[in-house]
């Protein structure tokens, strides 16, 4: 369907791929081969000559037996059953599903980047090292921090790295603190990382503004607290405006502030975690800096730190010598490696090209666009949903389907499924946990106002269907490649591989 606003049109379409797709195993034919090998003229030896009998596999592993043509058709048909940013808006709160410039894909695919073995001597990888060095510097400039490791391969990995840095700092102070404070609105990775970092989670509630309750925080701060993990803007899309006071209180007890960079997109060029008083900052390059999400990875989760923590960073780090040559260094009191090599290098190359093409001016416009779009959509949807914290938000806002549930018995879950039928992806549901029937909406800066209007109208249509009663949306979606999926059955009768399918 199409929507017009101020002369432009926007379009969303139902998806293709309505037919069931056989698995690659069902498409296999015994004896069929796609694989090819180059001519090497290396002398052929038999399995018996090459492998001691005790180690030899009796039967070949049961990989598919499919021709290349059929395999390509299979993969292509699977893509018809998959929604993506490149097809349409993806307003998943907290996930920053922005359009990623194609330029970045091409830059990262250059053989000069992709064909390099990570153990190649630095003299032969000067381009990589220079790029990683430059990316590290610019990430420090963006966050207002002193030094950075690019190695953590994802946000959660960055969190754990940050907690281990906290631990190393504690130990260097000759103390062993036991607790880390996190708000009740935090991402689930935060408490899980705290546990794996060897700390105990202490939860601080949000106040009626949707912000950290500063008084409650003060009550929880003592000499056992190693630090606090904060997302700012927080998961309600609200800026923690008491951050300076919070930082002072946390530092007063000798604890550290950890910045979860999940929502960094909102503040690019506007304000910096370093200026707010944060000691450790992780960034999700796959959210803010346009590394495509790839259906759930790979991402990259660099961690930047203040000067006093730099000596603990994981190694190795790119370093430029006085002769201008790049090499590696590992900080003196490094917590050690956090990745098999240097992190998700090609994802880092994408992020660097994204930063170059936007520049400081462009990044500021990214934040402005993201915040403008989210505020516009909040205003636009006010009449449709409850907005529990209905005041100026940053890059996202949290709506609630409580009004619809109360009046018509229809849950946020059903609203989300209904939106899929409109040709849009659904918002994040039931998060943050402190909002009932939450629909967390992050339009991102790359969606036009025409698309936002189309999205708003789609929400309105779904709400109108909901008003007709529970029945209609309980069986949505209907115009998607499959209908509503039975999630409970998947958990109850686990079939995690083709071989676990019941016979017949």
């Amino acid at each position, binding site marked *: 369907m199409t929507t017009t606003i101020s002369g432009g049109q926007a379009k969303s379409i139902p998806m293709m791929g309505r037919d069931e797709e056989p698995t690659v195993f069902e498409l296999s034919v015994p004896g069929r081969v796609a694989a090819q090998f180059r001519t090497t003229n290396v002398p052929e030896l038999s399995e018996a000559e090459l492998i001691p009998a005790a180690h030899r596999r009796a039967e070949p592993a049961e990989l598919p037996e499919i021709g290349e043509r059929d395999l390509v058709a299979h993969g292509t048909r699977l893509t018809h059953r998959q929604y993506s940013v490149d097809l349409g808006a993806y307003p998943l709160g907290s996930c920053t599903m922005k359009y990623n410039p194609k330029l970045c894909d091409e830059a990262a695919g250059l053989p000069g980047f992709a064909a390099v073995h990570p153990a190649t001597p630095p003299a032969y990888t000067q381009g990589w090292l220079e790029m990683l060095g430059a990316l590290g510097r610019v990430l420090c400039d963006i966050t207002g921090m002193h030094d950075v490791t690019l190695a953590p391969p994802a946000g959660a990995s960055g969190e754990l790295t940050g907690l281990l840095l906290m631990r190393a700092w504690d130990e260097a102070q000759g103390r062993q603190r036991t607790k880390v404070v996190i708000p009740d609105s935090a991402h689930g990775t935060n408490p*899980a990382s705290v546990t794996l970092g060897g700390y105990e989670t202490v939860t601080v509630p949000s106040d009626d503004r949707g912000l950290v309750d500063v008084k409650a925080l003060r009550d929880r701060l003592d000499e056992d607290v190693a630090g606090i993990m904060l997302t700012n803007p927080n998961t309600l899309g609200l800026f923690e405006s008491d951050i300076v006071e919070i930082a002072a209180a946390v530092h007063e007890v000798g604890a550290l502030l950890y910045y979860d960079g999940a929502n960094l997109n909102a503040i690019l060029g506007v304000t910096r975690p370093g200026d707010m008083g944060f000691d450790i900052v992780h960034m999700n390059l796959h959210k803010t800096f346009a590394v495509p999400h790839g259906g759930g990875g790979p991402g990259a989760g660099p961690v930047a730190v203040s000067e006093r923590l730099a000596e603990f960073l994981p190694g190795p780090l790119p370093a430029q010598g006085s002769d201008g040559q790049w090499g590696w260094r590992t900080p003196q009191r490094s917590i050690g490696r956090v*990745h098999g090599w240097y992190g998700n290098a090609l994802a880092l190359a994408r992020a660097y090209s994204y930063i170059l093409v936007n520049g400081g001016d462009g990044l500021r416009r990214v934040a402005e666009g993201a915040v403008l779009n989210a505020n516009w959509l909040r205003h636009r949807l006010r009449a449709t949903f409850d907005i529990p914290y209905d005041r100026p938000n940053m890059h996202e806002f949290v709506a609630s389907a409580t009004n619809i549930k109360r009046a018509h018995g229809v849950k946020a879950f059903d609203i989300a499924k209904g939106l899929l039928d409109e040709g849009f992806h659904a918002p994040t549901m039931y998060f943050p946990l402190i909002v009932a029937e939450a629909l967390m909406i992050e339009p991102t800066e790359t969606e036009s106002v025409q698309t936002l209007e189309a999205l708003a109208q789609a929400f309105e249509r779904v709400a109108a269907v909901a008003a007709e009663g529970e029945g209609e949306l309980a069986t949505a979606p209907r115009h998607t490649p499959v209908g509503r999926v039975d999630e409970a059955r998947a958990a109850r009768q686990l079939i995690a591989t083709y071989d676990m399918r019941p016979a017949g």
Partner: protein
Amino acid sequence: MGHYVPHTDEEIASMLAFVGLDSLDELFDCVPEALRLAQADFAVAPGLSEFDTAAEMERLARANRGSELICFAGDGTYDHDISSMVRRVGMRTEFVTAYTPYQPEVAQGVLQALFEYQTMVARLAGLEIANASLYDGATALVEGVNLAVAATGRQTVWLSNGVNQRWGQVVRTFAAGTGHVICNVPLTDGVTEWPEPSDEAPGAVVVQYPNRLGVLEDMAEAARVARATGALLVVAFDPVAAGVLKSPGEWGADVAVGEGQPFGTPMSFGGPYLGLFAARLEHVRRVPGRIVGETVDLEGRRAYVTTLRTREQDIRREKASSNVCTNQTLIAVHCALQMSWLGKAGLRELALRCAQGTRYTRDALLAIDGVAPLVGAPVLREFALKLPVDPARVVERMADEGFLAGTVTDDGAGHEGLLVAVTERRTRTEIDAYVAAMEKAIR
């Protein structure tokens, strides 16, 4: 500069009016004034056009002369051929620009590809279940160790010195948080020499197969040690070698982890790769990360969905046994495509070709005066040599001759050596030239 925010000035003005503001700056009124960044203090250079950006990236890529070296290095990363089909299909925009499949009704493409991936990884590992991938081999090993510790309630880990040294370092880094006690188990002539059972019974016995020196470890012994101590056997396996070797499951592994890069992912200066993770079914509730399961939709049609979600961090929060949220889906999709393309016969041939190239190269190098095996145990597709000169020096000299000669390693007993890997990409001509260059480089 890039124009990725689409609004015209008029649209911005009307959108601002709609939300009751006069300027874009007012959007940030909630940020305390003292924290607001003056433009002059934002030290990021102005944006470039797409084409100027591409030119700068090309300049940096060209400065990596290493991309043209003929690769004889392995040590966890391998120079394999990748079918064009993998790139062409695997880089289709629906795979690249999708999010984690939170709404399964519009994510069947990714979910089914992951289901197929899990099936292939489980079959290769000889175990019942596999997850939808982890970050890389090293971090998959960390998760494997964590699973074993949680399952046994014992924090001591017997980590063979035959495990990739960087992976071992990563295990130690994260042990600082979990409190696991990592005991290094030494190598004797390239093979792990397990200690006698003691009071500190391990929760995990960790072995790599083939190990970091390319050696075919005594897996029966590792399995016996695990059984005798009541530990879980965690095997770090090479998925290519698994084409001709007994699977971790056949050897008695409870958990198998590995680096999936050899299937469909370029060497990429170390990442993104993907961690393979498979386990016995009884451990499924402790498996980290995402698992895709088959189910049906309301009309009874086959469908896929991420399942057993209650294991995961967003639900269990501080009680979760792993903080993994994202996996490496796109890389797993590429891996599944390459495995499917290789197929049953192709994987076996791939492994054999690697072993043939390795044998040919190793024999030729050992014929050089002064070159000897670093360890005596049998190898498959990677091997370590003792050289008469500093191996780091040899790597530098060989690079000047156009070869990445290998990586510097040690035998775990104080002797340095050069670790060499040969894949199916290396032709006899390349190998002969490499051997001739080595002959000079070690003088």
